[in-house]
């Protein structure tokens, strides 16, 4: 069932490619149906999963026997969380790009190709296959931004594509090296993630190869100081593009860090644990600080993503169960909330006012003109601040609890990041929606187009998702924690001290 998430998306791409150029409406509907079908498949597959603590094989057939690669799709609880997230984000993204008029079918074809690649990464348990899907997402991202984006779109798109490509090539170096060493040690070539995770790589080797792979994936997760693609990329992207970038693409990076870099080189993580935590905390504070001083509404959200992804990386660096489960939960939570924030900024505000500059927005009294947008942004904002009841709270709390045991100072510093987080959200809410500045000379004479039905559905869906997980975090933790706790799982060596 889960594998169908991938196939459905790519079938959608093919169907869209065959459509006549003018059929914009049909393209939208096909894209939406495809995304919904993928989302349903994700949910159904996740619910059917007998035991989320174990890796359940979906399909495993030899692909390139000469190098030990197989077409190996499988899922454990962590994959399930992210697959479900992808399903939700995909549907929401389409609802918020209902107004794409320029080359509609191509837009949605690239969009679904990106989604298909993302599902593929989360379900691959063969390292080469995972890498294939990972790189497959780069091209659609580039075209979505360069063709349908706004502010400095070609620059933002190229920067994102090059950062991703360089990152994935660092990963490739590490994978080839690991493949060679594992083959020399075990006597046969394999790229199976489970088999590789049982190989004990020499400590000296892990010492240099782990940072290579971790940073390679970390670039896409917004790891400071390699995060600079994120604000420009998010701002340049069309609404659905930024929703997917923040919602799922950054998770690809974090997922790769956890599933590949950390699982393959558990001793390497321990050698670099402090450095990772330090970079994560710098990212949290720097992202929040930068968000506080932005003049462009969308840059605020762009930098806030860097800050929130810092919590994911901090959670990964804790190397204890609660920190890691917090990190995975934060991936889900941030995926939902950031998607919603970008939807408000990009679709509800920018597509109507054609400006994202706070100076102009202040004069428009959007809170009165677009009450739905205002309320949505406030809800998403408090969720992003980490108010109890929303998913962000549970996730960040777990990360901090995990971090407190290992890095008390860093934990306190990241608390500072949370406080700045409250500040920049309040500032954005005030400046964009509820300013007293009153209509200036540039006042809007023509009424704004009302918030459409697809937008309302999308917004309600995402808020509901964040609330449900905030109130019943057990729904996801029941998937995540068995994975981490099981003594037989691939994470066992990571959490139990390994050979160091």
């Amino acid at each position, binding site marked *: 069932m889960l594998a169908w998430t991938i196939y459905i998306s790519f079938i959608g791409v093919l169907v869209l490619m065959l459509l006549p150029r003018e059929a914009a409406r049909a393209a939208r509907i096909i894209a939406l149906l495809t995304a919904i079908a993928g989302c349903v498949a994700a949910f159904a597959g996740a619910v059917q999963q007998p035991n989320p603590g174990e890796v359940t094989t979906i399909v495993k057939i030899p692909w*390139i*026997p*000469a*190098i030990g690669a197989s077409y190996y799709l499988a899922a454990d609880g962590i994959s399930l969380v992210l697959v479900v997230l992808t399903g939700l984000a995909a549907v929401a993204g389409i609802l918020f790009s209902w107004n794409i008029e320029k080359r509609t079918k*191509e837009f949605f074809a690239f969009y679904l190709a990106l989604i298909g690649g993302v599902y593929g990464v989360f379900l691959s348990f063969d390292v*080469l296959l995972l*890498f*294939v899907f990972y*790189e*497959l997402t*780069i*091209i659609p991202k*580039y*075209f979505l931004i*360069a*063709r349908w984006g706004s502010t400095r779109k*070609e620059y933002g798109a*190229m920067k994102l*594509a*090059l950062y991703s*490509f*360089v990152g994935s*090539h660092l990963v*490739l*170096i590490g994978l*080839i*090296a690991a*493949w*060679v*060493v594992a*083959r*020399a*040690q075990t006597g046969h070539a394999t790229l199976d993630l489970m088999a590789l995770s049982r190989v004990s790589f020499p400590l000296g080797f892990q010492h240099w190869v782990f940072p290579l792979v971790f940073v390679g994936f970390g670039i896409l997760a917004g790891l400071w100081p390699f995060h600079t693609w994120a604000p420009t990329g998010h701002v340049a992207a069309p609404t659905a593009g930024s929703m997917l970038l923040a919602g799922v693409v950054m998770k690809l990076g974090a997922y790769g860090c956890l599933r590949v870099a950390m699982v393959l080189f558990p001793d390497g993580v321990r050698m670099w644990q402090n450095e990772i935590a330090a970079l994560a905390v710098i990212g949290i504070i720097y992202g929040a600080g930068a968000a506080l001083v932005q003049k462009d509404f969308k840059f605020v959200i762009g930098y806030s993503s860097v800050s929130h992804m810092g919590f994911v990386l901090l959670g990964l660096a804790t190397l204890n169960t609660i920190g890691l489960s917090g990190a995975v939960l934060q991936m889900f939570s941030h995926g939902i909330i950031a998607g919603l924030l970008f939807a408000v900024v990009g679709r509800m505000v920018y597509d109507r006012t054609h400006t994202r500059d706070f100076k102009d927005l202040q004069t428009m009294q959007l809170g009165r003109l677009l009450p739905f947008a205002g309320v949505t942004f406030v809800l998403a904002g408090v969720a992003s601040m980490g108010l109890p009841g929303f998913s962000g709270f549970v996730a960040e709390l777990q990360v901090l609890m995990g971090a407190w045991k290992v890095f008390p100072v860093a934990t306190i510093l990241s608390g500072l990041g949370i406080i700045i987080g409250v500040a920049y959200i309040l500032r954005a809410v005030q400046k964009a929606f509820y300013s007293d500045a009153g209509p200036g000379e540039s006042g809007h004479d023509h009424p704004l187009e009302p918030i459409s039905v697809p937008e309302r559905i999308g917004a309600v869906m995402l808020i509901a998702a964040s609330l449900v997980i905030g109130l019943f975090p057990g729904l996801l933790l029941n998937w995540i924690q068995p994975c981490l706790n099981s003594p037989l799982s691939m994470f066992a060596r990571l959490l139990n001290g390994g050979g160091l």
Partner: protein
Amino acid sequence: MNYLEVFQLAAPEAALTLTVLLVLAVDLITLRGESIERRFQTGALVSIIGCLMAVIFTFTHYGRTDPLHGLLVVDPLANFLKLVLLILTIFTMLISVSEKFTEHVGEYLALVLLGTIGLMLLVSAEDLLMIFISLELASLSLYILTAFNKRNARSSEAALKYFLFGGMSAAFLLFGFSLLYGLSGSTHLPEIAGALKGRGLDPLLLVAIVTTVIGFGFKVAAVPFHLWAPDAYEGAPTPSAAFIASGSKVASFYILAKILTLGFAGAEGSAVWHGYVPGWTPVIAVVAALSMVLGNLTAIVQSSVKRLLAYSAIAHAGYMLLGVLANTPSSRSALLFYVITYALTVLGAFGVVTVVEEATGGDALANFAGLSRRAPGLSLCLLVFLLSLAGIPPLAGFIGKFFVFSAAAGANAGHLGLLWLVILAILMSAVSFYYYLQVLKQAYVLDAPENAPAIKVPPATMFALVLLAVLVVLLGIAPGLLLSHL
């Protein structure tokens, strides 16, 4: 061994030779007054039928036969490579049919076929003399093919440059071969290796190695012997450039690897980081590193797509040399997989350039603007070819790179000695993504000039391009199809 048996062994080459005569005769006798287009179509049809005959003959021999002491070795691998060369030739014919650059249609097609015969003999040769003769047969055909556009001064300039460089490289090669003969008393590769065994690396052998590498360095356009390539690619009629970049590359790399691993067995030396031992691998390592760096960095600033492809070809020659360098049983199939998929891809890329050039009058980057609107199918093919060259999975180019890089990294049993070269190659391949994306940006992101009409793609060319694109995708998804033959 009588002549009839030799003739049977060389049946594919013999069939092609007869086709050459037939093409010339048909064009001369029956098509004099016809339009160039019609002459091209008929001539290409005859040539393709000849090639298909030759393809059938490549299936007739199983097992290894070497009746002429290395002059003509027929084994399954050589036969398969001949098949590949013939397929590449057929594709070259298909993308040439709509060309109008010459009135000497028969001669043009005949020279393409003669070049193919040279390359086919080359992959069957294990004897220095035969290698030299077949290489010259191929090269001389290619020089003339480069000069074929008589109306364009750049074509003649490119051909002269190519010819002068090529002549010099032939001289180097011959000098190296003569030294080898002097050292070993034989022109047969296995015998040379036997005679050189245990000799150690004396200065004379080193000179022989270096001159041989220089000679082949010209053929495969590796730095610092690459200077002819950008001009030749740009000035030559595009189908000729496609042939130079595809078929000739496959055969040259195969024979280079054969000479080095078979003829210089025992004189490998080592290019391992901090473990340098003189021999042929360090020489190749230096050439490979230079090619990857210079080719990729220079390609970034090109504005002509053909020049860009030329510099990217130099960079790819660098990656391929890693496959030569690895020198393990599995690295040979990795190298051949890379070279063959590269040839298919680059042939397709040149095919797209041919059409665009014909329709817009140039091959500058700007001529590709808005291609996705003017010719959606063509543009999709270009996307596949360039992404494969950039090494994006799941296309064939990525799998080839993975094979070659992992073979090089694993060359000495887990010691990762050549990893420095692999790291360089992977980082440079990340650079290459930038310039391929520049072309795709023109095609997919920018808009065509006002009122630019849709581009009509000749059906034969479109057929060839779609087939090539499908092959590139298929060999990426199921590399076993090709790998099992290598």
